[in-house]
């Protein structure tokens, strides 16, 4: 075996290191650019939140600095002088109802599709997930009619009723991924040990699936908070609105935008929801790849 001449070997070693430094720089640079692009509107939101009117509305001022010291007055305004509190309350109320409905319906459905439906079970699971992709913007017009028919127009309960139509498909598919990882032998053992199928499920599958159920709860919550189209269409009066819609439509008095309060409202909701969603994203990915790999 011929060895490389010494000079040749030395050269490739050095350029290798140089290449490595270049690669790392490109990596970090790209990461920074993408991060900035994604986060800049939020940064701007947070900055604006604490600005005084004098500072903000003076076009001569450098907008990136606090020319007047930062103030909490805008948040105070938001909390006390607007319907923001009502929006938050409505949203949470709806979210709790939606979470409950979703969990109660999704857990048995996911179990059935994973354990009891054989081959067509996973196909049906995919079909159910596809329902998630039926856009609200296609359904919201007839849905408005249905809601009006049911007498629920302009009420927050219209949303509590309709939101599960997208949380259920999404979360069923998520839950299916989790349930597939529960060893089926445990259930069979429980049935041999003396429980009916339902008893076995309740005592073995459910306790083991708690992380999955928790993920379903969190995702129902975040999906509820994200929703915009239905609440825009169904509800007109301020007292029944959710945060997404309320902030957009209500924090404008006449033609005047109370920008700082508006931004405060946006940031105060957007960022915590993002944190929550992000934290559970890894579980979502696990569910997604499990689902994708196993069909």
């Amino acid at each position, binding site marked *: 075996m011929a060895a490389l001449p010494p000079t040749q070997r030395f050269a490739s070693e050095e350029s290798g290191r140089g290449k490595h430094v270049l690669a790392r720089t490109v990596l970090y640079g790209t990461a920074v650019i993408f991060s900035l692009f*994604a986060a800049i509107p*939020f940064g701007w939101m947070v900055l604006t939140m604490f600005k005084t009117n004098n500072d903000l*509305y003076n076009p001569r001022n450098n907008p990136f600095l606090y020319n007047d010291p930062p103030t909490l007055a805008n948040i105070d305004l938001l909390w006390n002088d607007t319907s923001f509190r009502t929006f938050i309350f409505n949203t949470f109320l709806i979210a709790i109802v939606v979470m409950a409905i979703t969990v109660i319906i999704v857990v048995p459905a996911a179990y059935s599709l994973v*354990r009891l439906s054989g081959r067509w079970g996973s196909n049906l699971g*995919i079909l159910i997930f596809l329902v998630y992709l039926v856009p609200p913007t296609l359904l919201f017009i*007839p849905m408005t*009619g249905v809601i009006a*028919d049911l007498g629920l127009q302009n009420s927050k309960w219209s949303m509590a009723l309709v939101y*599960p139509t997208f949380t259920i498909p999404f979360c069923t598919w998520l839950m299916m991924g989790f349930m597939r990882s529960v060893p089926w032998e445990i259930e069979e053992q429980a049935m041999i040990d003396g429980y009916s199928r339902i008893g076995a499920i309740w005592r073995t599958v459910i306790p083991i699936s708690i992380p999955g159920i928790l993920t379903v709860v969190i995702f129902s919550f975040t999906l509820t908070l994200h929703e915009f189209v239905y609440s*825009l269409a169904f509800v007109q009066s301020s007292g029944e609105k959710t945060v997404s819609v309320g902030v957009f439509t209500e924090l404008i008095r006449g033609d005047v935008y109370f920008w700082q309060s508006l931004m405060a409202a946006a940031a105060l909701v957007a960022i915590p929801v993002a944190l929550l969603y992000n934290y559970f994203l890894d579980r979502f990915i696990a569910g997604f790849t499990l689902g994708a790999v196993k069909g």
Partner: protein
Amino acid sequence: MSAPALTTRNVGKRYFFDSERVLGPLMLFPAVIYIVALVGFPLILAVLYAFSDVTVGDPRITGTENFVGFENFRDVFNDRVFQKALRNTIVFTLVSQVFVIVLANVLALVLSADFHGKRLVRFLVLLPWTTPIALGVLGWFWMLDSVYSPIDYAMRQMGLLGPDSVFGPGRNMYWLGKTDLAQGAVVLVHIWRTLPLATVILLAGLTSIPQDVKDAANVDGAGFWRQLFYIRLPLLLPIMAVAVLFSLVFTFTDLSVSLVLTRGGPVNDTQVLSTWAYFRGIQGGNLAQGAAIALFMLPVLIAIAIGMLRLARRSENN
């Protein structure tokens, strides 16, 4: 040691719920009911509405006198705003998705490597998707304001804006006020929003490439670029298709961006099918026309659904 005798009392009734054949459908029933009643039924209703004369004031279809044939479709189609909306929907979606595919691949590669601050970068990069869309777009709305945009300020400081400068004598760009700028802004925000979703899906695909394959490539002497184009990208193709289909749906059918950013303006130049359906159907009260407008999204959605199902079938056969 003797075992207790077996008893058979009321066997038929007691063990009814043990039967898989009973329990399976039973557990699935509520979910199916919900979907059929609140998704399937409205879907059918959407079609019916489009052929009827329902309004917000009178949303019931009581009899055949409500039906007006293709009148709604004709009215809608001849409307210039609708034509604009149709064109915009297609153009915005295609342009933004081309960018998203390329950028998502780059970003997924970046996020699959290890580096300091990776968790922070991941959080920031995912922000546009993980926050409620209406609120995120509000941030852009403020950032692109006609008077107070910080981008304008920066441009002014750099001499790109203001009297005797590249971008014109005005002190502001009017990002959301000028037609082409507004349209560009909508496309940009769409990219901003769906990039994280596409990236996450691709990232999941990247991490599922078995290590053995990568090791074999390394042993075979393949460098970074060769590995990228000959190994990773081909293996990623099915997942990329999934990512594309997802972001396509979310962009094509989106209402929030055009509504919050520009309210469809200026002069309806950023209307898309969903916002126009909203303006006509809900704000204007003409549910039938709104439904007709929204229905134009259906062909594309069906094509996407077929694409998804084919992908699913292929991954099952693999």
